[in-house]
C-alpha cells in the first residue's frame, strides 16, 4: 500500500503542535539550529551573482523531466542495466520493501549498513527488515542518533536537529556503554566513528538513497558531508539503492546546476564534502552487485495534477524548513511525517491522495518565506492553497468553517448586505466589549482571544463616515 512512514496515523497538526510548543528544550534546539543554517545559507547564496538564473534553470530542468518522466525512467533503466546494474520497479512502499528484503535474503545476508535514505523511512523499510529478521544499521551520524535513541527524524537534512549535544551524549552513553563520554563534539564524533567503523568493515550489504539518478548515463548520485555514505556505497559487496521516480535528471550535465544549488541551500556549504556518483558495477572496484529500486508510492498521482506537480521538483534541501516561521516554532515532529515543514505540508498529504494528513495544508501562514528560499522555485504557498481548495471541494472542511465562509460570502456579496452585517456584528459585540477591546469571545473567535485582544468594532464604519461627510458637503 501507499504509505508515508506512519503519517496516516499521526495526530492532526494543531494538536501535535500544541505538544511541541510546550517542549521548551526542543524549541530552543530547533531555533538555534535553524538560525545557524539559515545564516550560513544566506551568506553563501549571497555570494552567487547567478543564483536566480540557477533557480530558474533548475525549475525548468525539473519541469521538463517531469513532463517526459516515462521516457527518462526507461532510459535510466536501459543505461543502468547496460552498466551492470539491476533495476526494479516498485508501485508502493510494501512492494519496495519486499524487493529489498528478497535481494538481501537471496544472498543469505542478515545485516545492512544504510545511508542517506529518507525514502526508506517513507516505506518504513527498517520496520519491514526487522520483521523479516534482518538488522539495518543507520550510518549517517544524525540517522544513527535517531536509530539509537528510538526517535523520529525531525528535519529533512538534519534529522536529529531537535537534539542538542548533551542529549546525544546521553543516547550514546546508554547504547554504546560509554559511561565516561563527554558532550564535546570531537568525543561524540569519535564514539560514533568507532561504533560505525566496525560495521563498515564487517557488513557486506549496503543500502542507500539517491539525490539524483541520471538518465543518460544510468548513474546514481549521493551527496553528503561525513564520508559515511561513501563507505556505504563502496565497501559492501552488495549495494541496493532506493530512488523515488522524481529523482531523475536527464543528463549528467544537469548536475552542474543542482550540485551548486543543493549544498548551498541545504547546509550552507559551497560544495558537499562528498559527492559520490557511480554507474552500474566495475569489476575489482566497489560493490560486485548493484540494484536500483525505482519507487512510485503516490508520486504518479502528484504528477497528474498540473498545479501541484512541481511538488516533485523538490531536491530535499530543507531550506524551506529553516526559513519557515511555523517549523521554527514547532520543529518537525508536529507534521507527523518524515517530510516536515512547508514541503512536508504539501508532499505528505498528496502522496496519500489527500486521504490523510489533511491538517497539514493549513499549517502555514502563507508568509512566502519558503518560496523565496526554494532552490527549485516550488511555489509552496500556491500549492498549499490549491490543496485547501481540494479539501473544500471534497466536502472535507469542518462544518463550522463551511457555514462561516458561506455566511461571509453572502454578507460580502453586496454593500447593502455588508452594511447589515456590520450593524449586526456591532450590536452582537456589546456584551463582550471592555475598554474598547474584546478580551473573551466564544468559539471560534475564542482561539484568538485566548492569547490576543481584538479591537472592538468602532461605532462608525468607514463607509458610514464617508456617507456622513458627503451629506455634510451637500
Amino acid at each position, binding site marked *: 500500500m501507499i504509505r508515508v512512514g506512519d503519517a496516516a496515523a499521526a495526530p492532526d*497538526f*494543531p494538536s501535535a*503542535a*500544541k505538544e511541541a510548543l510546550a517542549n521548551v528544550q526542543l524549541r530552543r534546539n530547533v531555533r538555534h539550529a535553524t538560525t545557524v543554517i539559515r545564516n550560513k545559507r544566506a551568506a553563501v547564496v549571497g555570494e552567487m551573482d547567478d543564483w536566480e538564473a540557477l533557480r530558474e534553470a533548475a525549475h525548468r530542468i525539473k519541469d521538463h523531466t517531469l513532463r517526459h518522466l516515462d521516457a527518462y525512467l526507461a532510459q535510466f533503466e536501459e543505461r543502468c542495466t547496460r552498466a551492470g546494474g539491476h533495476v526494479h520497479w516498485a508501485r508502493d512502499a510494501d512492494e519496495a520493501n519486499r524487493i529489498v528484503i528478497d535481494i538481501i535474503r537471496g544472498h543469505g545476508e542478515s545485516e545492512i549498513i544504510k545511508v542517506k535514505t529518507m525514502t526508506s523511512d517513507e516505506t518504513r523499510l527498517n520496520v519491514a527488515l526487522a520483521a523479516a529478521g534482518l538488522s539495518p544499521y543507520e550510518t549517517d551520524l544524525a540517522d544513527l542518533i535517531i536509530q539509537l535513541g528510538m526517535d523520529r527524524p525531525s528535519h529533512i537534512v538534519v534529522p536529529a536537529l531537535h537534539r542538542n549535544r548533551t542529549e546525544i551524549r546521553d543516547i550514546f552513553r546508554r547504547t554504546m556503554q560509554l559511561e565516561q563520554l563527554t558532550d564535546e563534539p570531537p568525543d561524540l564524533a569519535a564514539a560514533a566513528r568507532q561504533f560505525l567503523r566496525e560495521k563498515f568493515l564487517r557488513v557486506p550489504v549496503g543500502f542507500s538513497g539517491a539525490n539524483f539518478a541520471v538518465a543518460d548515463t544510468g548513474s546514481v548520485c549521493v551527496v553528503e558531508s561525513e564520508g559515511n555514505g561513501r563507505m556505504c556505497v563502496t565497501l559492501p559487496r552488495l549495494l541496493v539503492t532506493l530512488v523515488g521516480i522524481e529523482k531523475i535528471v536527464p543528463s549528467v550535465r544537469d548536475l552542474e546546476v543542482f550540485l551548486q544549488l543543493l549544498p548551498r541551500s541545504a547546509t550552507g556549504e559551497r560544495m558537499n564534502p562528498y559527492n559520490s556518483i557511480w554507474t552500474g558495477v566495475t569489476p575489482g572496484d566497489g560493490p560486485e552487485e548493484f540494484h536500483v529500486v525505482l519507487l512510485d508510492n503516490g508520486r504518479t498521482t502528484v504528477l497528474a495534477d498540473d498545479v501541484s506537480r512541481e511538488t516533485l521538483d523538490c531536491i530535499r534541501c530543507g531550506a524551506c524548513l529553516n526559513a519557515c*516561521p*511555523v517549523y521554527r*516554532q*514547532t520543529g518537525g515532529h508536529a507534521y507527523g511525517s518524515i517530510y516536515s515543514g512547508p514541503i512536508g505540508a504539501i508532499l505528505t498529504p498528496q502522496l496519500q491522495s489527500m486521504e490523510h494528513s489533511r491538517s497539514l495544508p*493549513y499549517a*502555514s*501562514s*502563507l*508568509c*512566502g*518565506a519558503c518560496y*523565496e528560499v526554494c532552490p527549485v522555485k516550488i511555489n509552496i504557498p*500556491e500549492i498549499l*492553497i490549491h*490543496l*485547501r*481548495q*481540494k479539501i*473544500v*471541494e471534497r466536502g472535507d*472542511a469542518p462544518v463550522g*468553517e463551511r457555514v462561516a*465562509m458561506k455566511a*461571509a*460570502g453572502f454578507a*460580502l*456579496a*453586496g*454593500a447593502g448586505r*455588508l452594511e447589515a452585517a*456590520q450593524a449586526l456584528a456591532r450590536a452582537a459585540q456589546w456584551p463582550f*466589549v471592555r*475598554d*474598547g*477591546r474584546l478580551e473573551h469571545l466564544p468559539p*471560534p*473567535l475564542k*482561539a*484568538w482571544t*485566548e*492569547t*490576543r*485582544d*481584538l*479591537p472592538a*468594532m*468602532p*461605532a*462608525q*464604519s*468607514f*463607509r*458610514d*463616515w*464617508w*456617507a456622513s461627510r458627503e451629506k455634510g458637503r451637500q
Partner: protein
Amino acid sequence: MLISLFITCYNDTLFPDTGKAVVAVLERLGHRVEFRREQTCCGQMHYNTGYAGEARRLMEHLLRVFDGAEVICMPSASCVAMIREHYPKMAAASGDPALVARVDALLPRVFEFTELLVGRLGVTDVGASFPHTVTLHPSCHSLRSLHLGDKPRRLLEAVRGLEFVELPEGDQCCGFGGTFALKNAGVSSAMVSDKVRCVLETGAEVCTAADNSCLMQIGGALSRHGAGVRCLHIAELLAATGPACPEPVEGAGPAR
C-alpha cells in the same frame, strides 16, 4: 488626479481611521478621492482558506465596482497581493477570456497606498509631522509579494520629528495568516510572541505597517501584555500633522 479608494472590508469595519487618514493624505496632496459604496471585499479570506468559488464571485463584484476607475488605492498590502497574484490565475481557471481581459485591465490600475505615493505619484514628503519613535513591521506581502522595498521607510523618514528604529528580524511573519490565526492559534500566538519581543526591543512608541491585519495581530498581543506600544497603520502616521499621536477611534487598536 481622481483616486478611487478601495478601503477593504476589514479596514471599513474595524479600522475606519486608516481610511480617513488615506483620504486626508491624498487630499492634502491635491488629489480628489472617490469612494464607490458598492465595494465589499477582494476575496482573500475565502481564497486562502480554499473557497475559490466564493472568492471568484467577490472578484467579479470588485471588477464591476471599479470598472472605469483610473487609479485604485488600497491601504492593505495583502489585499493588493491577492489581486495581483491570484486574480489572474482565477480568471485563467475560469476559461472565460472576457474575465481574463477584465483582470488584465484592472491590474495596472491597482496600487497599494505607499506604492501609490512613492511609485506612482513620486512623493516621499507628504507634509506630515509625528514626533515619536516608530518601528516598521515590513509585512510578508509588502516584502515578498509586492516588493515594496524601502518605500514605506522613505515615507516615514520624511515625516517631521519621526525617529525611525529598525525592527529586528523584520522579515519574519507576525503569525496572522488569516484563518491560520484561528486554525493554528497556538503556533500563531508563539509567532506573535517573537514579534512582540522584537518590537519591544526597539523601544518604539508606535509600530506601523502597510497592513492592518498584521497590526491587529501584533497590536492584539501587545495589548494583552499591557506593553504600552501602539500599532497604527502607516497612513495614520502620514496623515498626522501635530505633536500628538492621533486619537484612536474607540476600540480601534490596542490601548496605549
